[in-house]
């Protein structure tokens, strides 16, 4: 599609088309939006892009995005040191933080085991996790990888690895969305919810 345009516009469309969730049509729309915008607005966008690469780093402890050596969760002293929640991506940390339920620490793996994409345990931050667990402060590891084929494989790899370390290894439950209707749940989720049913307190 970008071949129909020339020079700078074609370059911009090609670059935007590389972004996740942006197809050829979307790239074209964004490119023309940029063209029609104020120079100052475009400069701010460009600056933001450059800054994000320059300033944002990954936390040396948990692998979350950070602006310093450690992320704000790792430096927060009020956090519970005995629990670590293992997630695939920094955006999963944000999702769990929104619940305000979890007060422990995080560990971001940077993906899931995926042989097709050449990702094995050594490409993930698993060794770092083992180092964090070595001193015995952590008593529970909560595995919160995605409930898909690769996430499940990663979860079961971790549980095998951690099984002999004498700490509690838990996995987030799969089940029904809160506030929804049972009839709208798909069969897989409903089946999982059945498997993971809990006894009610009388």
């Amino acid at each position, binding site marked *: 599609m970008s071949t129909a345009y020339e020079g700078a516009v074609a370059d911009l469309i090609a670059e935007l088309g590389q972004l996740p969730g942006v*197809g050829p049509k979307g790239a074209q729309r964004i490119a023309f939006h940029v063209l029609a915008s104020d120079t100052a607005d475009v400069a701010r966008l460009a600056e933001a892009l450059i800054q994000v690469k320059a300033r944002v780093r990954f936390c040396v402890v948990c692998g979350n995005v950070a602006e310093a050596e450690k992320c704000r969760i790792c430096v927060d002293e009020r956090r519970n040191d005995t629990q670590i929640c293992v997630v695939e991506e920094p955006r999963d940390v944000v999702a769990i933080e929104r619940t305000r339920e979890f007060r422990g620490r995080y560990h971001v793996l940077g993906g899931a*085991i*995926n*042989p*097709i994409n*050449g990702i*094995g*345990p*050594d490409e993930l931050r698993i060794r770092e996790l083992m180092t964090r667990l070595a001193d015995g402060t952590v008593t529970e590891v909560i595995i919160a990888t995605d409930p898909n*084929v*690769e996430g*499940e*494989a990663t979860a*079961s*790899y971790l549980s*095998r690895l951690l099984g002999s370390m004498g700490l509690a290894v838990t996995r987030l439950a799969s089940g029904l969305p809160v506030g929804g209707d049972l009839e*709208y749940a*798909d*069969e*897989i989720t409903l*089946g999982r919810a059945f498997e993971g049913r809990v006894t009610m307190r009388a």
Partner: protein
Amino acid sequence: MHVSDLALTDFRSYPEVVLAIPAGITAFVGPNGQGKTNLVESIGYLGAFSSHRVSSDAPLVRQGCERAVIRARVQRGDRPSVVELELNAGRANKARVDRAPVPRIRDAAGIVRSVVFAPEDLALVKGDPDVRRRFLDDLLVQLTPRLASVRSDYDRVLKQRTTLLKSAGAVRGGRRAVSAAAEEESGGGTSAGGARSAALRTLDVWDAQLAATGSQLIAARVDLVRRLRPHLASAYEQVSSAQGELAVTYRASVTQARPDDAPDALDSPSAAADAEEELLRPDVVEARLLEAMSRLRPKELERGVSLVGPHRDDADLVLGGMPVKGYASHGESWSVALAMRLASFELLRGDDWGGGDPVLILDDVFAELDGRRRARLAALVAPAEQVLLTSAVAEDVPAELDGARFDVMAGEVTRVR
């Protein structure tokens, strides 16, 4: 059930076509390449969410267009419902049922059920095992939509595991070359060894995943084969009138891979029945798969393929004690293929959730059959609630299937009777 109205937009060769189709028998007649099959293919697509002619959706969208739309009004019992399917080139398809969008396209599956007979069906008998596996799996998904996700999860796990085996095997091969070249120098090739052990550490995890999903698929297929068996035998008897009984057995790679099972031990009927009984239990199959994978691991690494699992299984068709493949004549093979389709029809119509008879689609099959089989098949399908058939010439349509008729010529569909 029957489809009473069909509207296509940019589907295959049709920019726009709207048809009212009666219940009972309808023939689409016209020379080759005029678009007869495209019409029935669209209805078949609504049933299976895949075409009997192509494996990808791209050819279904008319050239140069972005999307094709199939819209059908279906009469199930006395309830009409409208199913609308939008096929998008290169994007996710969308479905609407009774004008309301459904969140997942799978939710629209099973509203229109169909059984398609096509010239390609001969491959069910003469083709490779994957054709028969697909036959079983497609039927399974129509009967139990939940299995669609088991099937796709399994495919995913298999792909991941096989990739891992390949890369681990490659590292192994590389190391062997290194150590051969520098036999004196010990300590060389440690990085290759390290990569290999990393790969092997995760292999156990993929074994477990493969066994968990694969066992569900195998158990479901074996159950299906058992349900198909009586229908298959009687359908074959009716179609062919030949001697000998048509039997089907599920051949599981996991059973074959067992070291302690001498091949002739399975030949006795009671042993075969016991073996089948065990395959119905997912927990048993899962344990067997795990056992087989751990035993076959060196071989799997060497060859870079997953050697056991539902992707290596087959349905054996046996006619009067002889395997159909390789022994049956062309005509007998056709009888067996027809019997398989007829048996699926019987199974689907007997299913409580199905809303009665599936729509029967006979795409250009009469030209393939001799007069006797043609007449028998016609007599068997004639009572179905709706039969849609295509033929290049009107003379190929058996007299038993006299009904409504549309002429199809250069994309124009006109009702002539």
